[in-house]
């Protein structure tokens, strides 16, 4: 039994290495747009309460699960975009201009926080998917996000001044 487990572990490791090498060769995914109006409706708790009061329980649960499925895809997109910002920050950190390097450091930090919050959102939404009667507080994607926005804008301005040709962020 234990031998089978160890063999399975080794085979999983080989598979994981293959997937890692394959996804690295594919490169980073470019950020994708988000339909804001649809996203707003999906995450509106008032809208959810309205549906809960009006619809039969089983129908509401089915509908809620569908909404969560779509919301998860939006959060996944945001999470992937945060990873793109992290990568941008890492490259900009190599700049010879200390101001650019500092701004890059700050946006990488903040993008990392967003990524963590996205993970929390994933966990909460998954819980709600499993038990639709739950209404967990939506993940707070860090109040620092506004700071991320400002920092990335600042980095963009600095890089234009520095003429390093790196693409500008947020």
């Amino acid at each position, binding site marked *: 039994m*234990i031998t089978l487990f160890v063999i399975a572990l080794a085979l999983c490791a080989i598979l*994981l290495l293959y997937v890692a090498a394959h996804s690295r060769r594919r490169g*980073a995914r470019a950020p994708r747009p988000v339909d804001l109006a649809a996203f707003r409706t999906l995450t509106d708790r008032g809208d959810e309460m309205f549906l809960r009061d009006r619809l039969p329980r089983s129908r509401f649960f089915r509908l809620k699960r569908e909404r969560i499925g779509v919301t998860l895809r*939006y959060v996944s*997109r945001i999470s992937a975009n945060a990873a793109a910002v*992290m990568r941008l920050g*890492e490259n900009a950190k190599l700049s010879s201009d200390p101001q650019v390097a500092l701004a890059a450091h700050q946006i990488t930090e903040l993008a990392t926080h967003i990524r*963590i919050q996205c993970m929390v959102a994933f966990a909460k939404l998954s819980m709600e998917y499993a038990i639709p009667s739950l209404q967990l507080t939506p993940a707070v994607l860090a109040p620092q996000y506004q700071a991320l926005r400002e920092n990335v804008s600042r980095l963009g301005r600095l890089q234009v001044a520095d003429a390093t040709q790196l693409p500008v962020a947020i």
Partner: protein
Amino acid sequence: MRLSAGIVAGASVIHALWITSICLQGLLGLVLLTKKSWERFPLFTSYALFNLLEMIAGYVARTNPTIYFRLYWCGEAISILLGLAVVYEIFRTIFVQHPALRRLALFLFALAILGLLIVGGMVIWAKNPGDSKSMTSAILVIAEATRILEVGLLMFLFIFSSAFGLHWRQSTFGIAMGLGIFTAVELLSVTMQSEWGTASVAVFNLIRMLAFNISLLVWIAYIFLPERVAESDLPQRAQLEQWNQAVMELIRQ
């Protein structure tokens, strides 16, 4: 007659792979020295140079079974410890750029070590090396338990960094990939060898040598080749503006 011819052919393949391995390790040592890799990866450089010395010493002592046995298993023990140190070095290199994740990563890394130590302990308990008929069987069980730790920690690093979208620098990725290939095959080999006994030694030696040589090629390629930064991979302002608004909406909820 046919069997002995097969054994001779197998022995010459292993011998050829041994020589290839020494040459590749020499080349890796050269690449590490010319790229001054010891500054960024002191533990990996020590690991690579130690493996080269161990391999040369083993080759020289191959005609004396007693000396070879002691040299091989002492070398393996040191190599496993250095391998674990390399895993820690990879961990440190990845998270030095992400202080925000460091505490969480350190906590989960410690948790992973604890879990893997329990699995390793279970392997030792289940196979009870004290009851083994030969010294080699007992050593194989210990090797299996320590390789579980090494493979498990590498898996943790790949899974964790993928979950958080961390981008690995080329050389770090190459070191982890090479070590992962070798340790996963090594774990598979020691596990099956401890089950099937000495009859399978030659086959597993061949597989391990092949895997180690592949790992050497991976290390040489990833460390030697210059880092590739694809500008097209980076986000554009308009796209980022859109997702920026989307996140602001989510925060407001």
